[in-house]
């Protein structure tokens, strides 16, 4: 309790609270106080965690800089200097010709020693469609725009990885590079880049495929191993009405600079392999699963059947286990539509460097999977699951933290917010991804959700920097007006949220266990949404991360 009070006091008088925070879990609406009149749509958040300065974080979301930053040339990012308690908008992402849309598919990472922040995003310029842009800065608060590093036309879904190579930043920019035929997953990389000529290219795909038009995700292990996770449309398995995908893992054992890069992992023949989608061709890149159907929603196809959220095959995540010294333990997560539900997210594990895979958990009606492994070897699995409701469906942002491959897990509900037609601006509704990072034994992450300030929407509490009335469940204009005839209500929208989850249990868990001792209720399946759990103590335990046995 003391820790909770300290946490409350430490945040000062600026925040608006749903309730006293649990010290172990912090959820923060990232819209800054002085930016509190914004009503735009901020999905697809990304987070960069500084490797040495624990207080320093950078983040991005769809943020429009048109009338805030310098005319039509800059867009904002979000920066925190107090480990996510408060955030500031900083105008430093160059977006020349800005007109109505913020930079897209933004990803940001700090260099391995924290000297520079790198940002990659998609920005279409005249004559340069869907252009990848990569920038960096040595001071996120600099009044100067970030420095341009490289541009490349027709790229989608970039991911950034920056690793330490003998004191230098090796910058790797993965993505779907559409200038190849067929389109292919590829990586641009350079050491301590200062300009475009230094970048070299690695094409990841070694197979004959239909195309690769979607995401690529990277993660590195301290051993120098780099894993790349991507999906590809199988060449031999086609259906005009359905998109089929292979989920592929490639590996490089020399920081991405092997003589034959990302070819360390070759697919071995398997005893049983489906005839129409065989596995075991001996080529680089192991296919974790093959020929998975995937729904693809066009612009006009999005309905409330999936919470107004589109389904596109960009949802991938990969994480290595830092406690495995050799870097053999790796987790992947992806989404597909293989079940009868609208979309399913699945997490799988390999303990042999990506050769063999075991499925750990599959969550129905969910999206935006993100995995990370902490210094205790615990797997964090973040996703957003749709809870169907007769009044309004809800997007429930859940984090599972497990030590035993999802046999048991601490479950956290970080938000449960309504999916409302009113908040739909365009697609994606709340974004095509979330991000989860581990720092020591702490998990840090970002997600987007409806910003209606209702304490029932945030079981672990929440801090709003912008003005909000939890009593009236409404956002308020930043500067209250004196005229009593006026109403200070501000339109709700989609906002980015930051969260951190520490290793310790909430003190409330002990009380709940005591309450349960008299009338034991069964431990629910991890796929079960807390709202479906009848026992109130057990339900609460699945919201605030209690160990359950």
């Amino acid at each position, binding site marked *: 309790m003391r820790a909770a009070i300290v946490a409350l006091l430490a945040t000062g008088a600026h925040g608006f609270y749903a309730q006293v925070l649990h010290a172990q879990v912090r959820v923060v609406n990232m819209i*800054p*106080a*002085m930016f509190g*009149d*914004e*009503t*735009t*749509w901020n999905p697809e958040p990304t987070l960069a965690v500084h490797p040495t300065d624990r207080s320093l974080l950078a983040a991005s979301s769809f943020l*429009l*800089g*048109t*009338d*805030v*930053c*310098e*005319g039509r*040339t*800059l867009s*904002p990012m979000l920066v925190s*200097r107090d480990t996510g308690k*408060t955030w*500031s*908008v*900083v*105008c430093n992402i*160059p977006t*020349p*010709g*800005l*007109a*109505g*849309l913020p930079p897209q598919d933004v990803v940001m990472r700090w260099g391995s020693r924290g000297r520079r922040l790198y940002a990659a995003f998609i920005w279409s*310029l*005249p004559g*340069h469609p869907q*252009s990848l842009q990569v920038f960096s800065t040595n001071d996120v*608060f600099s*009044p100067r725009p970030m420095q*341009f590093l*490289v*541009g490349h036309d027709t790229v989608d879904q970039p991911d950034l990885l920056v690793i330490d190579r003998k004191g230098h930043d090796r910058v790797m920019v993965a993505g779907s590079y559409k200038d190849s035929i067929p389109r292919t997953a590829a990586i641009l990389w350079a050491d301590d880049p200062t*300009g*475009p000529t230094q970048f070299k290219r690695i094409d990841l795909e070694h197979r004959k495929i239909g195309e690769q038009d979607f995401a690529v995700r990277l993660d590195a292990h301290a051993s120098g191993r780099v894993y790349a996770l991507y999906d590809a449309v199988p060449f031999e398995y086609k259906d005009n009405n359905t998109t089929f995908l292979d989920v592929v893992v490639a590996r490089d054992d020399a920081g991405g600079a092997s003589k034959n890069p990302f070819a360390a992992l070759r697919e071995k023949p398997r005893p049983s392999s489906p005839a129409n989608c065989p596995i075991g061709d001996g080529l680089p890149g192991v296919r974790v699963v093959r020929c998975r159907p995937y729904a693809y929603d066009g*612009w006009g196809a999005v309905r409330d059947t999936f919470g107004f959220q589109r389904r596109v095959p960009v949802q991938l995540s990969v994480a290595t286990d830092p406690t495995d010294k050799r870097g053999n333990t790796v987790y992947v997560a992806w989404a597909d539509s293989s079940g009868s539900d609208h979309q399913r997210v699945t997490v799988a594990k390999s303990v042999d460097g990506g050769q063999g895979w075991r499925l750990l958990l599959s969550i129905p009606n969910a999206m935006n999977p993100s995995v990370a492994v902490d210094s205790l070897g615990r797997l964090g699995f973040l996703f957003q699951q749709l809870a169907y409701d007769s009044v309004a469906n809800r997007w429930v942002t859940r984090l599972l933290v497990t030590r035993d491959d999802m046999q048991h897990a601490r479950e956290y509900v970080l938000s449960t917010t309504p999916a*409302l037609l*009113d908040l739909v*601006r*365009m697609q994606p509704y709340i974004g095509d991804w979330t991000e989860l990072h581990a720092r020591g034994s702490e998990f840090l992450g970002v997600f987007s959700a409806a910003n209606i300030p209702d304490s029932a929407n945030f079981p672990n509490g929440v801090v709003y*920097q912008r003005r909000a009335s939890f009593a009236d469940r409404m956002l308020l*204009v*930043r*500067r209250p007006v004196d005229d009593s*005839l*006026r*109403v200070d*209500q*501000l*339109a*709700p*929208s989609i906002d980015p949220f930051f969260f951190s989850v520490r290793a310790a249990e909430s003190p409330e868990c002990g009380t709940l266990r005591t309450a349960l001792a008299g009338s034991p209720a069964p431990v629910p399946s991890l796929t079960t949404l807390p709202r479906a759990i009848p026992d109130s103590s057990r339900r609460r335990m699945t919201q605030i991360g209690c160990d359950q046995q």
Partner: protein
Amino acid sequence: MGLAVNRSAASTRWALVAACAIALIGPRATHAQLITIDRLADSLGKLRRTSTFAFRARIDSLRASTVPGIPASAHTIAVTPTVSLQCPQAVGVYAGQPLTVFVEDTTQLAPLQEWWFFASGWVIGDHIGVRSVARFHAARADSALERDFLGPNGPRAQLAHHLDDTVFVVTGRISLDSVRPNVGTTIQRIINRGATAISFPFIRGTVMRTPVEAHLDSTFNVAVPFSLIQTPLLQVPDAYQHLLFLLHVTLNEPGNLVTSGPKPPYMLRSADDILPIADSAGVAAVIATLPKGTFGAPPTDFVTQCGTLPP
């Protein structure tokens, strides 16, 4: 390739700004005020398109910072705005709140002086930091600013004119079933005045009216083109495209509009909240495309917040 495009655009822009700044604050401008005012007005227009903040401020101290985390340096000064002329929508009015200005140099600046600053956003958190694009000593700039921003041909006046003939401004999707009596009365008053259509400054909509009477079940239907919502590039290139501004005549009471179907995202604001939008370069560009009418007197209850010049 991207580099060339980026730097070319940035260089041109900064060259323009620099030229404006030199023209505005240079010694020759000081000595040729009649000529300078014309040039000043012309340059102010350019500055309006480049800057996102414009305010008159008192310099509190040089080599100072009001933003936590931003260290004081030879390029940072602490000021307190007394007037905020141009306000980003997400920030709103900031007069009276100390802020930090990043300046290239502090020539001629001293504490307690009053200056107009044209600036762009730098850091916006619990406090505001901006980058100065240009600055003018307050004593010389007031008249030109008044003419350019607040005069009868300025964007503020044009928007005020549009507001005068507009019951509400729709920038998103809305369908109304009914309006409360005071709104119905206002609509009737506008109709009686001879208006044949209600204009939507940002989206041209068709207004289908049924006879409006001053009772609770008055029906007022509005159709707004949906294509603008589904094609984001066609939206106004600014941050206002999803707001419904309810004008002062409704007294901002929620429930004055009853929507058919799901409640749209909206924002209850009065005329004095809307007028600052005219100072946004993006919205001003849209307003400039609209037919201009006769500029009428401002509403009697008009109380400016962002855009008042000192008496």
